[in-house]
């Protein structure tokens, strides 16, 4: 410790390449776009300075309000599902599976690696009501309920999106959380057992607190990823019907590149970044841990 681990030349050598790429690819373009948000125009025609006009528009634009609400709703609901299902699956892997453990874990993880286009197509067909009744609606029919046009309403489409993204990502969170659970020393569990803790109480009072760090890490990662959702909804129904299931990120993309209003689009992107920041800080605050120690 000391001298060698503070070797300046080594630090620069280790850190510089990554830092250069990171600054060049992420930081500079972000700052550049932030500058754009004070302008109005297109790449082809050039930009004119408009001060805070784009940000003022953020306040008044009803679509921003709608998409913001949807994005937060989506992220919160999905994150809760992801963590809960992931945790339950992790417990399942831990306590109830033996020979099948690796196989099941692999299978459940597999949807994570599928192309978004494929998953969206799949779910479009699963929940279809025209031209044929899809499997889900067939089951409803069997139960005596009239088939539902899931994609016709914002609520129905929201349900499909949540199910789709949960199917796709549950395996990832399950494995991530499983990694944290497995790490809990079995001695601690045994001694808790001997003390009389069992079943649900074991989970609630021993396992849960000990796995808190990995849960926090998963929540932070998940929150940022979910707030920035784009691919899956675009591929499924393009944020329809109308803009009922359009997340902020998709609206920003449409504004910048479809409606040729790059300045306003950048302002919306700033909003997304702020949202992620606020969310992350809130999670940290409530878990009362510093970033450096978080995981």
């Amino acid at each position, binding site marked *: *410790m*000391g001298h060698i*681990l503070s*070797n300046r030349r*080594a*630090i620069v050598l*280790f850190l510089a*390449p*990554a*830092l250069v*790429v*990171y600054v060049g*690819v*992420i930081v*500079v*373009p*972000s700052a550049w*776009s932030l500058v754009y948000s004070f302008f109005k125009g297109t*790449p082809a025609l050039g930009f004119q300075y408009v001060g805070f006009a784009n940000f003022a528009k953020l306040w008044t634009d009803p679509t921003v309000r709608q998409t913001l609400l949807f994005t937060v709703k989506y992220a919160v609901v999905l994150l809760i599902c992801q963590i809960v299902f992931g945790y339950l699956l992790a417990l*399942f892997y*831990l*306590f*109830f*599976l033996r020979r*099948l*453990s690796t196989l*099941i874990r692999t*299978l*459940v993880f*597999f*949807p994570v*690696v*599928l*192309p978004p*286009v*494929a998953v969206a197509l799949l779910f479009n*067909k*699963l929940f279809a009501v025209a031209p044929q009744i*899809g499997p889900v609606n067939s089951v409803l029919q069997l139960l005596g309920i009239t088939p539902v046009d899931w994609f016709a309403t914002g609520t129905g489409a929201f349900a499909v999106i949540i199910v789709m993204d949960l*199917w796709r990502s549950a395996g990832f969170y399950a494995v991530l959380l*499983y*990694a*944290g659970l*497995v790490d809990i020393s*079995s001695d601690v569990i045994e001694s808790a057992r001997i003390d009389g803790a*069992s*079943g649900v109480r074991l989970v609630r009072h021993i396992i849960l607190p000990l796995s808190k*760090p990995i849960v*926090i890490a998963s929540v932070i*990662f998940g929150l940022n990823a979910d707030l920035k959702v*784009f691919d899956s909804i675009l591929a499924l129904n393009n944020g329809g019907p109308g803009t009922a299931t359009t997340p902020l*990120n998709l609206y920003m993309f449409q504004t*910048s590149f479809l409606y040729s209003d*790059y300045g306003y689009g*950048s302002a919306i*992107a700033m909003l*997304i970044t702020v949202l992620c920041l606020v969310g*992350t800080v809130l999670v940290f605050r409530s878990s009362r841990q510093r970033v*450096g120690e978080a*995981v």
Partner: protein
Amino acid sequence: MATTGPNEVRPLGRLTWPEETTARSGRRKRRTQGPDLARLSRRTLINILVAIILVVEIYPLFWILTSSFKSQDEFSTAPLWSMPQHFDFGNYSAAWLTANLGTDALNSITVTLVSMVVILALGSAAAFALEVMVWRGQNSILLFVIGGLMVPTQLILLPLFTIYFKLGINNSLLPLIITYIGQGLPLTVFLMATYFRSVPRELFEACALDGGGVFRCFFSVGLPMVRNGIFTLGMLMFFSVWNDLLVALTFNSKPSLSTIQVGLLNFNGQYGQVEYGPLLAAISIVIFATFIVYALINQRVMRGLTAGSVKG
């Protein structure tokens, strides 16, 4: 003193749910038929859950595979879960040609592998410097890099396009590779720093005392200790680059530079038609290939994920 190394795990999986322990140890207090019935019903419950999981996970993939053999009107007229009339491989050859899957696959593989290797190299080196080494300001820089997690991709597309154009590299795969590397660094640095943190500091201190320099410590002590973390991240990065669509679309200037994800878009018609059969065939090919890669590194990674501890 524990005799197991930091990466060996005493398999927690051998633990059982409390009631079972009681039953197995043979103490049958207060229960006569109880334990057997309880165990049987629980076994059944577990098996049912496993069956449900298998159906939920496998059926969709099975559907994609069988549907890829259907003809276009079967999609519109026959029920969705029906088996195809003929197992006609025409869709597959159409897929290969329309999507230009051969070239696309080559491009995807090149871009993904190169990006992955560079991300891991740069990321673990940076994480080492930020976590293991000691200097002022390291926490701030770490936060600075992790902040990149919050930046949406769309924000950086336009400036990057301009930069690459001005550098004159926009007619190659370089824009894709460089962008993916930049995007992958925040998460990689974050997680690698975590894994490095779990390595006992004594190991590094011992290495430092041995002499031989920091680089030796990094390569012979640091990296091997986080080997499984590297594999985990490798897989994560591989698939996030492999499945990316937006960046590939933006910087795609020639058909010969498309990636697989861009190629999959070739099945859409001008007025909104979609050739489902060939599209599903292309997806099946991609899934099959992905599965092979996945199976190959999966063993390693599953072990890695359970051993790359994320203690707080």
